[in-house]
Protein backbone atom coordinates (compact mmCIF):
# COMPACT_ATOMS: atom_id res chain seq x y z
CA UNK A 1 0.00 0.00 0.00
CA UNK A 2 1.29 3.42 -0.95
CA UNK A 3 1.89 5.80 1.95
CA UNK A 4 1.92 9.43 0.91
CA UNK A 5 3.99 11.64 3.18
CA UNK A 6 5.37 15.16 3.53
CA UNK A 7 9.04 16.02 3.82
CA UNK A 8 10.11 19.10 5.78
CA UNK A 9 13.58 20.58 6.07
CA UNK A 10 13.66 22.55 9.29
CA UNK A 11 17.12 23.92 8.51
CA UNK A 12 15.96 25.37 5.20
CA UNK A 13 12.66 26.90 6.40
CA UNK A 14 12.80 30.68 6.81
CA UNK A 15 9.45 30.87 8.63
CA UNK A 16 7.85 33.03 5.90
CA UNK A 17 4.56 31.10 6.30
CA UNK A 18 3.80 31.08 2.60
CA UNK A 19 2.84 27.39 2.98
CA UNK A 20 0.31 28.36 5.68
CA UNK A 21 -1.20 31.07 3.49
CA UNK A 22 -1.23 28.88 0.37
CA UNK A 23 -3.18 26.26 2.33
CA UNK A 24 -5.68 28.82 3.62
CA UNK A 25 -6.08 30.22 0.12
CA UNK A 26 -6.50 26.83 -1.54
CA UNK A 27 -9.10 25.62 0.95
CA UNK A 28 -10.72 29.01 1.58
CA UNK A 29 -10.14 28.79 5.32
CA UNK A 30 -11.45 31.46 7.66
CA UNK A 31 -9.80 33.00 10.73
CA UNK A 32 -8.64 30.40 13.27
CA UNK A 33 -8.44 27.66 10.65
CA UNK A 34 -4.84 26.62 10.06
CA UNK A 35 -4.60 23.25 8.38
CA UNK A 36 -0.89 23.98 7.96
CA UNK A 37 0.85 25.96 10.65
CA UNK A 38 4.39 27.18 11.18
CA UNK A 39 5.69 26.85 14.74
CA UNK A 40 8.52 29.22 15.66
CA UNK A 41 10.83 27.47 18.09
CA UNK A 42 13.32 29.55 20.04
CA UNK A 43 15.64 29.17 23.00
CA UNK A 44 19.00 29.97 24.48
CA UNK A 45 20.26 33.05 26.30
CA UNK A 46 23.43 34.35 27.84
CA UNK A 47 26.18 31.95 28.96
CA UNK A 48 29.30 32.88 30.87
CA UNK A 49 32.54 31.86 29.21
CA UNK A 50 35.51 32.77 31.38
CA UNK A 51 35.10 36.42 32.21
CA UNK A 52 32.79 37.24 29.30
CA UNK A 53 29.17 36.60 28.49
CA UNK A 54 28.25 35.04 25.15
CA UNK A 55 24.80 34.52 23.68
CA UNK A 56 23.74 31.10 22.44
CA UNK A 57 20.25 31.90 21.22
CA UNK A 58 18.79 29.78 18.47
CA UNK A 59 15.61 29.62 16.42
CA UNK A 60 14.11 27.25 13.93
CA UNK A 61 10.71 26.66 12.36
CA UNK A 62 8.46 23.68 12.02
CA UNK A 63 5.78 23.58 9.32
CA UNK A 64 3.14 21.08 10.30
CA UNK A 65 -0.13 19.82 8.84
CA UNK A 66 -1.88 16.47 9.06
CA UNK A 67 0.71 13.70 8.95
CA UNK A 68 -1.70 11.15 7.47
CA UNK A 69 -0.58 8.69 10.12
CA UNK A 70 -0.12 4.98 9.60
CA UNK A 71 -2.36 4.32 12.61
CA UNK A 72 -4.51 7.47 12.70
CA UNK A 73 -6.01 7.93 16.15
CA UNK A 74 -8.70 10.21 14.64
CA UNK A 75 -9.94 7.53 12.23
CA UNK A 76 -9.98 4.89 14.95
CA UNK A 77 -12.08 7.01 17.29
CA UNK A 78 -14.45 8.80 14.91
CA UNK A 79 -17.97 7.64 15.89
CA UNK A 80 -19.50 8.26 12.45
CA UNK A 81 -16.66 6.96 10.25
CA UNK A 82 -16.50 10.44 8.71
CA UNK A 83 -12.73 10.12 8.90
CA UNK A 84 -11.23 7.45 6.71
CA UNK A 85 -7.93 6.48 5.16
CA UNK A 86 -7.63 6.16 1.39
CA UNK A 87 -5.61 3.46 -0.35
CA UNK A 88 -2.84 6.01 -0.98
CA UNK A 89 -2.61 6.74 2.76
CA UNK A 90 -4.43 10.09 2.73
CA UNK A 91 -6.66 10.60 5.77
CA UNK A 92 -9.80 12.42 4.63
CA UNK A 93 -12.98 13.62 6.24
CA UNK A 94 -16.46 13.22 4.80
CA UNK A 95 -18.12 16.36 6.10
CA UNK A 96 -21.54 14.95 5.19
CA UNK A 97 -21.11 12.33 7.93
CA UNK A 98 -19.44 14.53 10.56
CA UNK A 99 -21.46 15.42 13.70
CA UNK A 100 -18.94 18.02 14.92
CA UNK A 101 -18.28 16.27 18.24
CA UNK A 102 -14.61 17.37 17.99
CA UNK A 103 -13.32 14.13 19.48
CA UNK A 104 -10.79 13.86 16.64
CA UNK A 105 -9.45 17.32 17.52
CA UNK A 106 -9.14 16.27 21.15
CA UNK A 107 -7.07 13.20 20.43
CA UNK A 108 -4.88 14.16 17.45
CA UNK A 109 -1.35 15.00 18.72
CA UNK A 110 -0.70 17.13 15.61
CA UNK A 111 -3.76 19.42 15.85
CA UNK A 112 -4.81 18.30 12.37
CA UNK A 113 -8.63 18.06 12.52
CA UNK A 114 -10.05 21.51 13.19
CA UNK A 115 -13.58 22.59 13.99
CA UNK A 116 -15.22 25.11 11.70
CA UNK A 117 -17.81 27.04 13.75
CA UNK A 118 -19.45 28.32 10.55
CA UNK A 119 -20.24 24.86 9.15
CA UNK A 120 -20.42 23.00 12.48
CA UNK A 121 -18.17 20.21 11.19
CA UNK A 122 -14.50 19.33 11.19
CA UNK A 123 -12.01 20.04 8.43
CA UNK A 124 -8.42 18.97 7.86
CA UNK A 125 -5.55 18.77 5.40
CA UNK A 126 -6.46 16.35 2.62
CA UNK A 127 -3.07 16.55 0.90
CA UNK A 128 -4.84 18.66 -1.78
CA UNK A 129 -6.24 15.36 -3.06
CA UNK A 130 -7.99 17.12 -5.96
CA UNK A 131 -4.65 18.57 -7.08
CA UNK A 132 -2.98 15.17 -6.76
CA UNK A 133 -5.73 13.62 -8.89
CA UNK A 134 -4.96 16.25 -11.56
CA UNK A 135 -1.26 15.40 -11.36
CA UNK A 136 -0.38 18.61 -9.51
CA UNK A 137 1.50 19.09 -6.22
CA UNK A 138 -0.11 20.08 -2.91
CA UNK A 139 -0.43 23.88 -2.70
CA UNK A 140 1.90 24.21 0.33
CA UNK A 141 4.69 22.27 -1.40
CA UNK A 142 4.52 24.38 -4.55
CA UNK A 143 4.28 27.64 -2.59
CA UNK A 144 7.41 27.14 -0.46
CA UNK A 145 10.09 29.55 -1.75
CA UNK A 146 12.85 27.76 0.20
CA UNK A 147 11.96 24.30 -1.14
CA UNK A 148 11.74 23.18 2.49
CA UNK A 149 8.64 21.10 1.73
CA UNK A 150 8.35 18.07 -0.48
CA UNK A 151 5.97 15.14 -0.71
CA UNK A 152 5.80 11.62 -2.09
CA UNK A 153 5.70 8.03 -1.03
CA UNK A 154 7.26 7.75 2.45
CA UNK A 155 9.74 5.06 1.41
CA UNK A 156 10.89 7.14 -1.54
CA UNK A 157 11.28 10.21 0.67
CA UNK A 158 13.32 8.28 3.21
CA UNK A 159 15.53 7.00 0.41
CA UNK A 160 15.97 10.50 -1.01
CA UNK A 161 16.48 12.45 2.23
CA UNK A 162 17.66 9.81 4.69
CA UNK A 163 15.95 8.72 7.91
CA UNK A 164 13.85 11.45 9.42
CA UNK A 165 14.46 13.12 12.78
CA UNK A 166 12.14 13.69 15.71
CA UNK A 167 12.29 17.35 16.69
CA UNK A 168 10.72 19.46 19.38
CA UNK A 169 7.74 20.01 19.81
CA UNK A 170 6.57 16.84 18.06
CA UNK A 171 5.27 13.91 20.15
CA UNK A 172 6.55 10.35 20.21
CA UNK A 173 5.92 8.98 16.67
CA UNK A 174 5.13 5.56 18.15
CA UNK A 175 1.69 6.87 19.19
CA UNK A 176 0.25 7.21 15.68
CA UNK A 177 3.04 6.48 13.18
CA UNK A 178 3.07 9.84 11.34
CA UNK A 179 3.89 9.76 7.63
CA UNK A 180 6.49 12.50 7.71
CA UNK A 181 10.19 12.80 7.08
CA UNK A 182 11.88 15.72 8.82
CA UNK A 183 15.43 16.95 8.41
CA UNK A 184 16.24 18.60 11.72
CA UNK A 185 17.68 22.06 12.18
CA UNK A 186 21.19 21.72 13.70
CA UNK A 187 19.94 23.19 17.01
CA UNK A 188 16.75 21.13 17.14
CA UNK A 189 18.04 18.87 19.90
CA UNK A 190 18.41 21.67 22.46
CA UNK A 191 16.55 21.02 25.69
CA UNK A 192 15.70 24.68 26.38
CA UNK A 193 13.49 25.10 23.30
CA UNK A 194 10.01 26.62 23.48
CA UNK A 195 7.35 27.61 20.96
CA UNK A 196 7.41 31.40 20.62
CA UNK A 197 4.19 31.90 18.65
CA UNK A 198 1.67 29.78 20.60
CA UNK A 199 -1.05 32.44 20.29
CA UNK A 200 -0.56 32.65 16.53
CA UNK A 201 -0.85 28.90 15.92
CA UNK A 202 -3.68 28.42 18.41
CA UNK A 203 -6.53 26.65 16.68
CA UNK A 204 -10.08 28.00 17.09
Amino acid at each position, binding site marked *: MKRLAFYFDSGACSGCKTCQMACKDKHDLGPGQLWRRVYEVTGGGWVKQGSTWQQDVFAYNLSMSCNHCEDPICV*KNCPTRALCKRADGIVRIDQGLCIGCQYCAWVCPYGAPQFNPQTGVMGKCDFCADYLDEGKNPSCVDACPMRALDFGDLEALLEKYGPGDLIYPLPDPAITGPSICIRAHPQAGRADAGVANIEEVKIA
Partner: protein
Amino acid sequence: MPDRDWSLVLFTTLAQWSAGIVLLLSWSLFSNTGPVFATVIGAGNPVLLALMLIAAATLSAFLHLGNPANAPKALNNLAGSWLSREILAIAVFSLSLFSTLVSGWLSGAGAALQYLLALSALCGLALLWMMARIYLVPTIPAWNNWHTPVSFILTTLNLGLCSLLVFQAAGMARIDDVLVNGLMTALMLTLFATTAAGLLHQLQLQKLNSCMHKPVFDRGPFFTVFLLRMALLLGAFLTIFYVLIHTTLLPESNYSAWLYALGSLVLAEEIAGRFLFYAAYFRTGV
Protein backbone atom coordinates in the same frame (compact mmCIF):
# COMPACT_ATOMS: atom_id res chain seq x y z
CA MET B 1 -12.25 25.15 29.35
CA PRO B 2 -14.23 26.02 26.18
CA ASP B 3 -17.87 27.02 26.80
CA ARG B 4 -19.09 24.09 24.70
CA ASP B 5 -17.56 21.66 27.20
CA TRP B 6 -20.14 22.72 29.82
CA SER B 7 -22.61 20.52 27.97
CA LEU B 8 -20.25 17.59 28.58
CA VAL B 9 -19.96 18.49 32.27
CA LEU B 10 -23.77 18.30 32.44
CA PHE B 11 -24.01 15.21 30.24
CA THR B 12 -21.56 13.07 32.17
CA THR B 13 -22.71 14.23 35.61
CA LEU B 14 -26.42 13.70 34.88
CA ALA B 15 -25.86 10.32 33.20
CA GLN B 16 -23.76 9.11 36.12
CA TRP B 17 -26.32 10.46 38.58
CA SER B 18 -29.01 8.47 36.80
CA ALA B 19 -26.86 5.31 36.81
CA GLY B 20 -26.12 5.89 40.51
CA ILE B 21 -29.83 6.08 41.44
CA VAL B 22 -30.56 2.86 39.55
CA LEU B 23 -27.53 1.07 40.94
CA LEU B 24 -28.32 1.97 44.57
CA LEU B 25 -32.06 1.33 44.22
CA SER B 26 -31.36 -2.07 42.69
CA TRP B 27 -28.77 -2.97 45.34
CA SER B 28 -31.03 -1.91 48.20
CA LEU B 29 -34.01 -3.82 46.77
CA PHE B 30 -31.99 -7.01 47.03
CA SER B 31 -31.12 -6.30 50.66
CA ASN B 32 -33.49 -7.40 53.43
CA THR B 33 -34.36 -3.88 54.50
CA GLY B 34 -34.92 -2.51 51.01
CA PRO B 35 -36.76 0.75 50.44
CA VAL B 36 -40.41 0.99 49.50
CA PHE B 37 -41.02 3.51 46.76
CA ALA B 38 -43.84 4.67 44.52
CA THR B 39 -44.19 2.77 41.25
CA VAL B 40 -47.02 4.79 39.76
CA ILE B 41 -45.94 7.29 37.13
CA GLY B 42 -45.70 10.58 38.98
CA ALA B 43 -43.31 13.06 40.54
CA GLY B 44 -42.57 10.74 43.48
CA ASN B 45 -41.26 7.84 41.38
CA PRO B 46 -37.45 7.51 41.63
CA VAL B 47 -37.25 5.38 38.46
CA LEU B 48 -39.01 8.16 36.54
CA LEU B 49 -36.55 10.65 37.99
CA ALA B 50 -33.61 8.49 36.82
CA LEU B 51 -35.18 8.31 33.36
CA MET B 52 -35.63 12.10 33.29
CA LEU B 53 -32.00 12.56 34.30
CA ILE B 54 -30.70 10.37 31.48
CA ALA B 55 -33.03 12.17 29.05
CA ALA B 56 -31.66 15.55 30.22
CA ALA B 57 -28.12 14.18 29.90
CA THR B 58 -28.79 13.11 26.32
CA LEU B 59 -30.25 16.52 25.46
CA SER B 60 -27.24 18.32 26.90
CA ALA B 61 -24.93 16.06 24.86
CA PHE B 62 -26.67 17.36 21.73
CA LEU B 63 -25.60 20.89 22.69
CA HIS B 64 -21.99 19.81 22.26
CA LEU B 65 -22.47 18.75 18.65
CA GLY B 66 -21.67 21.14 15.84
CA ASN B 67 -24.03 19.30 13.51
CA PRO B 68 -26.75 17.57 15.59
CA ALA B 69 -28.71 16.67 12.45
CA ASN B 70 -26.17 13.90 11.83
CA ALA B 71 -26.46 12.55 15.39
CA PRO B 72 -27.95 9.14 14.41
CA LYS B 73 -24.75 8.50 12.42
CA ALA B 74 -22.85 8.41 15.73
CA LEU B 75 -23.60 4.68 15.82
CA ASN B 76 -21.66 4.02 12.60
CA ASN B 77 -18.43 2.91 14.24
CA LEU B 78 -19.47 0.48 16.97
CA ALA B 79 -16.56 -1.77 16.04
CA GLY B 80 -13.89 0.81 16.77
CA SER B 81 -15.12 3.87 18.63
CA TRP B 82 -15.93 4.01 22.34
CA LEU B 83 -18.00 7.10 21.59
CA SER B 84 -20.30 5.05 19.35
CA ARG B 85 -20.54 2.36 22.00
CA GLU B 86 -21.39 4.97 24.64
CA ILE B 87 -24.28 6.25 22.51
CA LEU B 88 -25.58 2.68 22.15
CA ALA B 89 -25.19 2.13 25.92
CA ILE B 90 -27.24 5.27 26.62
CA ALA B 91 -30.01 4.00 24.35
CA VAL B 92 -30.02 0.53 25.97
CA PHE B 93 -29.90 2.00 29.49
CA SER B 94 -32.78 4.36 28.73
CA LEU B 95 -34.81 1.56 27.19
CA SER B 96 -34.29 -0.75 30.17
CA LEU B 97 -35.20 2.08 32.55
CA PHE B 98 -38.35 2.75 30.55
CA SER B 99 -39.27 -0.96 30.73
CA THR B 100 -38.70 -0.89 34.50
CA LEU B 101 -40.92 2.16 34.82
CA VAL B 102 -43.74 0.59 32.79
CA SER B 103 -43.42 -2.73 34.61
CA GLY B 104 -43.63 -0.99 38.00
CA TRP B 105 -46.61 1.05 36.86
CA LEU B 106 -48.51 -1.99 35.52
CA SER B 107 -47.63 -4.62 38.12
CA GLY B 108 -46.37 -2.70 41.17
CA ALA B 109 -43.27 -3.56 43.15
CA GLY B 110 -42.72 -7.23 42.48
CA ALA B 111 -40.05 -9.61 41.28
CA ALA B 112 -40.34 -8.29 37.69
CA LEU B 113 -39.51 -4.75 38.84
CA GLN B 114 -36.65 -6.03 40.95
CA TYR B 115 -35.04 -7.94 38.07
CA LEU B 116 -35.65 -5.22 35.50
CA LEU B 117 -34.07 -2.72 37.86
CA ALA B 118 -31.08 -5.07 38.26
CA LEU B 119 -30.83 -5.28 34.46
CA SER B 120 -30.93 -1.48 34.26
CA ALA B 121 -28.19 -1.30 36.88
CA LEU B 122 -26.02 -3.60 34.75
CA CYS B 123 -26.69 -1.40 31.71
CA GLY B 124 -25.75 1.63 33.85
CA LEU B 125 -22.45 -0.02 34.78
CA ALA B 126 -21.75 -0.78 31.12
CA LEU B 127 -22.48 2.87 30.26
CA LEU B 128 -20.10 3.98 32.98
CA TRP B 129 -17.31 1.78 31.61
CA MET B 130 -17.81 3.02 28.06
CA MET B 131 -17.88 6.63 29.22
CA ALA B 132 -14.57 6.17 31.02
CA ARG B 133 -12.96 4.42 28.03
CA ILE B 134 -13.64 7.44 25.81
CA TYR B 135 -11.23 9.50 27.88
CA LEU B 136 -8.48 6.88 28.16
CA VAL B 137 -6.48 8.01 25.14
CA PRO B 138 -2.68 8.06 25.07
CA THR B 139 -2.47 11.61 23.70
CA ILE B 140 -4.27 13.22 26.67
CA PRO B 141 -2.08 12.66 29.74
CA ALA B 142 -4.44 14.32 32.24
CA TRP B 143 -7.19 11.82 31.38
CA ASN B 144 -5.24 8.72 30.42
CA ASN B 145 -4.81 7.41 33.94
CA TRP B 146 -6.53 5.68 36.89
CA HIS B 147 -8.34 8.87 37.90
CA THR B 148 -10.82 8.83 35.00
CA PRO B 149 -12.63 5.53 35.78
CA VAL B 150 -12.25 6.04 39.54
CA SER B 151 -13.76 9.54 39.47
CA PHE B 152 -16.66 8.36 37.27
CA ILE B 153 -17.43 5.47 39.65
CA LEU B 154 -17.21 7.76 42.69
CA THR B 155 -19.55 10.34 41.09
CA THR B 156 -22.05 7.55 40.42
CA LEU B 157 -21.86 6.31 44.01
CA ASN B 158 -21.87 9.76 45.64
CA LEU B 159 -24.90 10.98 43.72
CA GLY B 160 -26.70 7.62 43.99
CA LEU B 161 -26.25 7.45 47.77
CA CYS B 162 -27.26 11.09 48.21
CA SER B 163 -30.34 10.58 46.05
CA LEU B 164 -31.58 7.72 48.21
CA LEU B 165 -31.17 9.88 51.32
CA VAL B 166 -32.99 12.78 49.64
CA PHE B 167 -35.78 10.40 48.50
CA GLN B 168 -36.21 9.49 52.17
CA ALA B 169 -36.29 13.16 53.17
CA ALA B 170 -38.79 14.00 50.40
CA GLY B 171 -41.03 11.03 51.21
CA MET B 172 -40.36 9.46 47.80
CA ALA B 173 -39.09 6.28 49.47
CA ARG B 174 -39.53 4.71 52.90
CA ILE B 175 -36.13 3.54 54.02
CA ASP B 176 -35.40 1.61 57.19
CA ASP B 177 -33.35 3.55 59.81
CA VAL B 178 -30.61 0.91 59.73
CA LEU B 179 -30.31 1.27 55.97
CA VAL B 180 -30.27 5.10 56.26
CA ASN B 181 -27.33 4.90 58.65
CA GLY B 182 -25.65 2.41 56.32
CA LEU B 183 -26.15 4.79 53.39
CA MET B 184 -24.70 7.68 55.42
CA THR B 185 -21.63 5.64 56.37
CA ALA B 186 -21.17 4.48 52.78
CA LEU B 187 -21.47 8.10 51.58
CA MET B 188 -18.84 9.15 54.09
CA LEU B 189 -16.48 6.49 52.72
CA THR B 190 -17.07 7.38 49.07
CA LEU B 191 -16.63 11.09 49.84
CA PHE B 192 -13.37 10.25 51.59
CA ALA B 193 -12.27 8.29 48.51
CA THR B 194 -13.33 11.26 46.33
CA THR B 195 -11.22 13.64 48.41
CA ALA B 196 -8.20 11.33 48.31
CA ALA B 197 -8.54 10.74 44.55
CA GLY B 198 -8.95 14.49 43.92
CA LEU B 199 -5.83 15.35 45.95
CA LEU B 200 -3.72 12.60 44.37
CA HIS B 201 -4.80 13.59 40.86
CA GLN B 202 -4.05 17.25 41.59
CA LEU B 203 -0.50 16.26 42.62
CA GLN B 204 -0.19 14.12 39.49
CA LEU B 205 -1.41 16.98 37.25
CA GLN B 206 1.16 19.38 38.65
CA LYS B 207 3.94 17.04 37.49
CA LEU B 208 2.56 16.67 33.95
CA ASN B 209 4.04 18.46 31.01
CA SER B 210 3.88 18.06 27.28
CA CYS B 211 5.88 18.99 24.24
CA MET B 212 4.37 22.42 23.71
CA HIS B 213 1.47 23.12 26.05
CA LYS B 214 2.41 24.28 29.50
CA PRO B 215 -0.84 23.99 31.46
CA VAL B 216 -1.05 25.65 34.86
CA PHE B 217 -2.68 23.56 37.57
CA ASP B 218 -1.14 24.90 40.78
CA ARG B 219 -2.49 28.47 40.61
CA GLY B 220 -5.08 30.58 38.81
CA PRO B 221 -8.74 29.66 38.15
CA PHE B 222 -8.08 25.89 38.01
CA PHE B 223 -6.56 25.87 41.48
CA THR B 224 -9.32 28.15 42.84
CA VAL B 225 -12.01 25.69 41.68
CA PHE B 226 -9.96 22.82 43.13
CA LEU B 227 -9.89 24.57 46.53
CA LEU B 228 -13.62 25.31 46.27
CA ARG B 229 -14.29 21.65 45.60
CA MET B 230 -12.24 20.58 48.61
CA ALA B 231 -14.19 23.09 50.76
CA LEU B 232 -17.49 21.63 49.49
CA LEU B 233 -16.29 18.12 50.31
CA LEU B 234 -15.35 19.27 53.81
CA GLY B 235 -18.81 20.82 54.15
CA ALA B 236 -20.42 17.53 53.09
CA PHE B 237 -18.34 15.60 55.66
CA LEU B 238 -19.31 17.98 58.46
CA THR B 239 -22.97 17.74 57.46
CA ILE B 240 -22.92 13.94 57.61
CA PHE B 241 -21.18 13.99 60.99
CA TYR B 242 -23.72 16.46 62.33
CA VAL B 243 -26.68 14.42 61.08
CA LEU B 244 -25.24 11.11 62.33
CA ILE B 245 -24.53 12.54 65.79
CA HIS B 246 -27.83 14.37 66.17
CA THR B 247 -30.15 11.90 64.39
CA THR B 248 -32.28 11.21 67.41
CA LEU B 249 -32.33 14.84 68.56
CA LEU B 250 -33.29 16.52 65.27
CA PRO B 251 -36.98 17.22 64.58
CA GLU B 252 -38.12 15.54 61.35
CA SER B 253 -38.33 18.79 59.36
CA ASN B 254 -34.79 19.78 60.37
CA TYR B 255 -33.53 16.29 59.57
CA SER B 256 -34.93 16.57 56.03
CA ALA B 257 -33.42 20.05 55.62
CA TRP B 258 -29.97 18.70 56.56
CA LEU B 259 -30.30 15.90 54.01
CA TYR B 260 -31.29 18.41 51.31
CA ALA B 261 -28.24 20.51 52.27
CA LEU B 262 -26.05 17.41 52.05
CA GLY B 263 -27.45 16.56 48.62
CA SER B 264 -26.82 20.11 47.37
CA LEU B 265 -23.25 20.13 48.68
CA VAL B 266 -22.45 16.80 47.03
CA LEU B 267 -24.03 17.85 43.71
CA ALA B 268 -22.08 21.14 43.71
CA GLU B 269 -18.88 19.29 44.58
CA GLU B 270 -19.45 16.81 41.74
CA ILE B 271 -20.08 19.59 39.21
CA ALA B 272 -16.88 21.34 40.36
CA GLY B 273 -15.01 18.04 40.06
CA ARG B 274 -16.29 17.47 36.53
CA PHE B 275 -15.41 21.04 35.58
CA LEU B 276 -11.85 20.36 36.77
CA PHE B 277 -11.80 17.14 34.75
CA TYR B 278 -12.53 18.93 31.47
CA ALA B 279 -10.44 21.99 32.37
CA ALA B 280 -7.42 19.70 32.85
CA TYR B 281 -7.47 18.79 29.14
CA PHE B 282 -4.32 19.29 27.16
CA ARG B 283 -2.90 17.03 24.54
CA THR B 284 0.59 15.86 23.98
CA GLY B 285 2.24 17.21 20.85
CA VAL B 286 1.36 20.42 19.06
